[in-house]
């Protein structure tokens, strides 16, 4: 009996295969058998030299016009960035090309958007296989990182291209900013202008803040919040004053709060004090600042100002909306940030926010997002022109960042540059203005942002902040790779609970400091000092 049904199964499978062979457009199963051995065959030496010759046919149509006079077919520029899937991206691409054509710019853009899920692999393979690309978005915090790409020779130095093709961009960019994307004296990327400082602070629901008498003017450091937190704890039995989330802690200790420039990474806190002219690299975990911060966190944790168990980051918004928490600390307090957070949380009540940090500009913050040009680019001049346009032209920037007017967004107040969602808003909303150029071109999505002059305030914050003494220095982790990995593990294991107040500093802090030493923290500090000194020497 079993055998019978099995026979049926197999015959159905075979039948299906025949049906499929018959219906499918000849492409599917028919060429499969001959190609099969090829697919499993190890592509050895024979395949290796191909990358240099193979890309040619694909880019040939684009390459030809550069040599030809301007009137010829437009130059094609491929723009690779990292948006999640956007249904209408082709429409946006067409709209951008229509604007370019209308203005007589002989360039067409091809948007190549990769999702976060595939960005790292696809970028790595694209670069390794020598595939043609022109404009690429780069960042130091996502693999392949900006410096990896430069070291591998995947990016083109922009020093010559910039003055030739990007006059508007050169004028718009604060000159100090070029330092942050310089590697060995050459500029490899255009920093996208956004908030370049990290003023950490706190935010609370306004209704709670008012009810329990939080006077923002009187709070200049976290300790000043204590009476308010105690009152909330007492008065709202179902509410925890501060949310504590999993992953990288957002709590009292954030390096920048204490004037530390995290020149290595956010986890490996080998830091330079932002105003230390001697540029001495120190281990932040051994400073009195770190000790007092984790002691305060412990005190607050035991007083019940934090949740006992960390909450998943993805659930913070829903928990805030459900009224489980009154607010949070350790986030970047940027102009208009309270409105954004309120939207993210889906709250109807507004938030109040204040920074307790002296803001200063760091390499990490200023180079957080930038745009570069690939070495394989066949049309670097056209790519640079386009890059300049996306950074300085509000129409093109907003087209790419927010979509098409009347479709994905509509004017709410044209004079104040405020927009609202359009009828097809769901089909295009990348929500990553900071990825496609200077966000100071962006239209406001909330009238409150316009009222608060968010862009003006951010520009002022950038301009008015001191630059860290180490601005422009980028650490090369290669010589201490093992130590970096070990220290990062120790930090995750012991520093995270300390920072969140879940571990007792009296016992855990000495243990943590000892384990850090064993993991090679001192070696990293020494290496960072060596690199900082070398960098300092080249600067003068």
């Amino acid at each position, binding site marked *: 009996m079993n*055998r019978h049904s*099995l*026979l049926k*199964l*197999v015959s159905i499978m075979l039948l*299906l*295969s025949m049906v*499929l062979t018959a219906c499918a457009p000849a*492409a*599917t199963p028919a*060429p*499969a*058998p001959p*190609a*099969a*051995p*090829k*697919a*499993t065959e*190890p*592509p*050895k030496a024979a*395949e*290796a030299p*191909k*990358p240099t010759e*193979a890309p040619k046919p694909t880019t040939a149509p684009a390459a030809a016009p550069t040599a030809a006079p301007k009137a010829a077919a437009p130059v094609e520029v491929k723009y690779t960035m990292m948006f*999640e*899937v956007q249904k209408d991206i082709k429409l946006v691409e067409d709209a951008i090309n229509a604007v370019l054509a209308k203005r007589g710019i002989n360039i067409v853009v091809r948007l*190549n958007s990769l999702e*976060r*899920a*595939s960005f790292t*692999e*696809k970028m790595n*393979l694209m670069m*390794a*296989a020598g595939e043609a690309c022109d404009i690429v978005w780069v960042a130091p915090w996502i693999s392949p990182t900006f410096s990896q790409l430069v070291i591998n020779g995947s990016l083109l130095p922009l020093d010559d291209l910039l003055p030739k093709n990007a006059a508007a961009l050169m004028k718009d960019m604060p000159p100090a900013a070029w330092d942050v994307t310089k590697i060995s004296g050459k500029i490899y990327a255009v920093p996208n202008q*956004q908030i370049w400082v*990290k003023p950490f602070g706190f935010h609370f629901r306004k209704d709670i803040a008012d009810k329990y008498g939080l006077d923002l003017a009187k709070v200049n450091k976290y300790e000043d919040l204590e009476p308010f937190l105690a009152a909330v704890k007492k008065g709202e039995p179902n509410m925890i004053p501060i949310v504590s989330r999993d*992953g*990288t802690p957002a709590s009292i200790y954030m390096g920048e709060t204490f004037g530390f420039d995290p020149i290595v990474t956010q986890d490996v806190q080998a830091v330079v004090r932002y105003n230390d002219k001697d540029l001495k690299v120190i281990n932040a975990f051994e400073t009195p600042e770190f000790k007092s911060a984790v002691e305060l966190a412990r005190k607050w944790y035991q007083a019940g100002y934090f949740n006992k168990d960390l909450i*998943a*980051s*993805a*659930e*913070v*918004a*829903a928990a805030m*909306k*459900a009224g489980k928490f009154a607010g949070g600390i350790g986030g*970047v307090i940027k102009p208009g940030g309270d409105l*954004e957070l309120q939207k*993210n949380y889906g709250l109807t009540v507004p938030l109040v926010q204040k920074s307790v940090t002296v803001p200063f500009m760091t390499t990490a*913050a200023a180079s957080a*997002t930038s745009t570069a040009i690939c070495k394989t680019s066949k049309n670097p001049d056209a790519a640079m022109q386009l890059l300049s346009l996306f950074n300085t032209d509000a129409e093109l920037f907003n087209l790419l960042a927010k979509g098409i007017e009347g479709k994905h967004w509509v004017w709410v107040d044209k004079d104040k540059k405020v927009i609202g969602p359009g009828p097809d808003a769901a089909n295009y*909303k990348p*929500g990553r203005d*900071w990825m496609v150029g200077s966000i100071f071109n962006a239209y406001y*999505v909330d009238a409150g942002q316009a009222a608060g002059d968010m862009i003006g305030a951010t520009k002022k914050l950038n301009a008015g902040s001191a630059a860290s003494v180490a601005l422009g220095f980028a650490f090369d982790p290669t010589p201490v790779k093992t130590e970096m990995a070990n220290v990062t593990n120790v930090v995750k294991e012991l520093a995270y609970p300390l920072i969140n107040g879940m571990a007792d500093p009296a016992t855990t802090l000495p243990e943590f400091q000892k384990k850090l030493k064993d993991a090679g923290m001192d070696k990293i500090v020494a290496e960072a000092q060596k690199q900082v000194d070398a960098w300092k020497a080249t600067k003068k």
Partner: protein
Amino acid sequence: MAVAQHTYSTNYRRRGAITQTIFNLILMAVGLIFLFPLLLVISSSLTDEVTLARTGFALIPEKISFDAYNFIRMDPGRILSAYSVTITTTTVGTVCGLLIMAMLAYALSRQDFAWRKPLSFFVIFTMLFHGGLIPTYILVTQTLHLKDSLLALILPYLVIPWYVFLLRTYFITLPKELIESAKIDGASEWRVFFQIVIPLSTPALATVGLFCILMYWNDWWLPLLYIDSPSKFPLQYLLYSIQKSAEFLTTGEASALLQTVELPVQSMRMAMAVVAMGPIAIAFLALQRYFVRGMLVGSLKGE
């Protein structure tokens, strides 16, 4: 089978009902442990986000809501196209792969095949060595020009050396005399293969077939490398991509840059998981008995 079952149960009856009950209870407990996360996924997909945040995961949600499944109604195209891609690659890949692997394995199983050794070496070699990611990528995209094509999702998994040897081992256990007598009766090689060998090898074929189905159904790696257009995303990659973008937005990689975003909420992710696992769970239940039996392929002679 029936005879075996009979002795099995009488044995137990002799040893006493208590042992049996204990064993059953233990197995039931283990079964529940396996079932629990699944039920949790289903139940949390059936509640709304705020309830989930307030009360946490619960087997019986406080408030039933089908909100999470709204994404299917709102954007059915995306999930339907992902389904059709997955079903296409799974069916075509499994059928073609099974056919090719069976033919290859059969040739390798025949002692009188002159090229048996070189061909075996060729298969074994790919089992031990492969070109690595970048050469494979260059082969697929620049030599075969399969970037953004469904074939790129099918071809790389078409012949899996391990399964070829599994089938070969099974074919070897078939009596040689059977093939010889078929030949004496005038059957061609093709006829021997399709009418004698294949029907006798159903357990092995069903096992390998199920492996292939699972492999194609659960694949997210190949689309990650080769597929660009969202309309060609298979189901697992769609889920993976949604999961990754949610992680990206919340784990602080970009926290300083974060702006107003809409997160795929927890309950919706659970709902997507339920939608994606439905059909394969049913397929698994239907094929399970072959699967279990097929696991013994190679260790036992065929029935």
